[in-house]
């Protein structure tokens, strides 16, 4: 009897990767939209006290980037998911208008860069780190997305905080980064493990996420 190995797909995207990534992303977009509506309420008191504090809830927008990458584990997953999620929000009607697409792209890029450096990119230093799609990578990716979100909002013309004073901008960026790490990074990591436990991820590289070590 011959035993044929199942085709390994490596880094190319299969149809199932695309459809599931898009699904996660659009669901994220709908959640975004709800988050944006809710953010209006939550951010009112924050705005009233000290506007840069709103950076602390920014992480909610970056979940698709980290979650998508943790589940799909293919290059480009973070950018793809975050951009599609932004498109989803745009379709639902966004207060940020078309600029939401640019924000999405940049936030996705932030997370993607972290994953590239730590996980799938080909660098010598990685052999010391033993980096996998673990909690640290998730936190750092969330932080990366948050950092890019903060930079986008503070320095690009369509940024909401473009008119802040430099000190406030810095505070905002720091808050965004923390929020990205905690809300997007940690929550996505937990969600991936939860999903893996139900068996739905059986056709993805993340199917064993629930039993993977937390660190290294």
């Amino acid at each position, binding site marked *: *009897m*011959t*035993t*044929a*190995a*199942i*085709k*390994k797909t490596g880094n190319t995207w*299969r149809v*199932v990767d695309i459809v599931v990534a898009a699904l996660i992303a659009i669901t994220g977009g709908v959640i975004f939209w709800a988050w944006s509506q809710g953010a209006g309420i939550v951010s009112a008191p924050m705005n009233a006290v000290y506007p840069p504090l709103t950076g602390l809830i920014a992480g909610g927008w970056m979940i698709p980037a980290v979650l998508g990458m943790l589940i799909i584990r293919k290059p480009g997953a973070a950018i793809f998911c975050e951009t599609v999620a932004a498109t989803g929000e745009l379709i639902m009607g966004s207060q940020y208008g078309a600029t939401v697409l640019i924000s999405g792209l940049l936030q996705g890029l932030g997370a993607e860069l972290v994953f590239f450096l730590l996980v799938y990119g080909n660098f010598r230093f990685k052999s010391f780190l033993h980096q996998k799609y673990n909690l640290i990578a998730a936190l750092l990716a969330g932080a990366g997305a948050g950092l890019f979100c903060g930079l986008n909002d503070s320095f690009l013309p369509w940024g909401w905080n473009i008119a802040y004073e430099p000190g406030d901008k810095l505070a905002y960026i720091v808050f965004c980064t923390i929020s990205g790490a905690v809300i997007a990074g940690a929550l996505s990591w937990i969600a991936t493990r939860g999903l893996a*436990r*139900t*068996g*739905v991820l*059986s*056709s993805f590289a993340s*199917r064993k996420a629930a039993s993977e070590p937390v660190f290294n």
Partner: protein
Amino acid sequence: MTASDAGASGVRPAAVSARGWGWRHAGRSAPAVQGLDLDIAPGERVLLLGPSGAGKSTLLHALAGVLGDEGDDADETGSLLIDGVVPRGQRGRSGLMQQDPETQVVLSRLGDDVAFGAENLAVPRDEIWRRVHEALDDVGLRSAGPGPGGLPLDHPTSALSGGQKQRLALAGILAMRPGLILLDEPTANLDPAGVLEVRDAVGRCLDKTGATLVVVEHRVSVWKDLVDRIVVLQPGSAAGSTGGSAASSAVLLDGPPDQVLAEARDMLIGAGVWVPGYVPATRRRVSAGSGDLLLAAEDLAVSRERPRRRGFRTIPPVPVQHGIAAQVRSGHALTVTGPNGAGKSTFALTLAGLLAPVAGKVSAAVELSEGAGIDPFKWKANQLISRIGTVFQEPEHQFVTGRVLDELMFGPRHLGHGEERVDELLERLRLTHLVDANPYTLSGGEKRRLSVATVLAAHPRVLVLDEPTFGQDANTWAELASFLSELLDAGTSVVSVTHDQEFSAVLGGAELRLGPASRGGARQEAGAA
């Protein structure tokens, strides 16, 4: 549309050959199929039979080239070839219709969805539209003309009934002009008229294109005259464990329908095949039941939609059925029948206290409510499960854990009693070998049995079952029917929504026939038995 001439159909029938082919799914110890040797000549029409879990769907997926996305620990043995080449990578050579019609729809407009396959095969645009019209004609979803099934090309696919979706899926496959048509229980869940329509649609297309057909279905009678060969599979583990030379093949029987049905009738019956004219023996009811009223519906109007609020007004939804009257009595069965889309499931959910009535009321008698109040919709969830147990039409909706055993233990643990019944249920519904499996990876029939078992485990007084017998082979069917008749004797009441006349005959009791949607006024007729 003008029918294209035979040459223009341009279909090259495919040949299938399997040599010692086997497949073990990821996470399973036993293979689903083992040692399959099978040759299908171009243009042959094969009916594939076998007990639930025998690996029929697995084989069809392999032929369609879509098996193997589930990870590295799945295992393939032997070879399976279409026209001498592995199926994967030959996409478009075969067209697969899966067991679940809902996931057959890809795009949101009718015409686009039919065109999708042809587009992927890089068919020129004019040709695509010609094929789309033709395919829609063939399956009776005529796009042009004012016929009753006439739907515009931009009709939203989400607004189709179950039967229409199944036809749409067939049209999408036909538009690809595949050499091999693979149909996995294409008529499950269809009403009797719909079954014949879909079958005839398949027949017409085959006559026109001459493509090879492999169809999986439990009921032989529907397909007997259309196919020219019957192949019966046996479960992969059975093929492996016996070890003997004859039994080690996955194919139990193979031959022309009439010959197989005449010569090997007993063997077919033993394998759980639904042979025409044979109804498996089931347990007889011994007591007629006390007949105490447990649950009653009066002048009930039902809909899935909820009232909408516009300003300060609430607008009630348009009901799919109204004026329904029904009584559910201890030890008596009630069968709900009617065409697809009539609102049977909606009624069942309302009766079971899961949906709020649009008008009229559902009231529980004191014997059932035992202090929980008269309106089942207002009961708490754990009050509900010990009183009314509901099995949904789509089994997957009800799974809440990741393991078959946990799934069965779930209800009893919540209630704090009944865990001891679980083993018996596993045994009788043939799920024992699957206790550790993930519910979502089960075969179609296994999922159905599990969802029935989970509800039985909570031992409710009233059972509401939506299509409890679809996808079952004759043996498990008989086991299920006998089990329910025991429960009826013990005073449980069984309400079942079903197209399965033999099943309602076994349970006896009254029938509630719902007309096409929005006619209303359905009353239950006593004594179908």
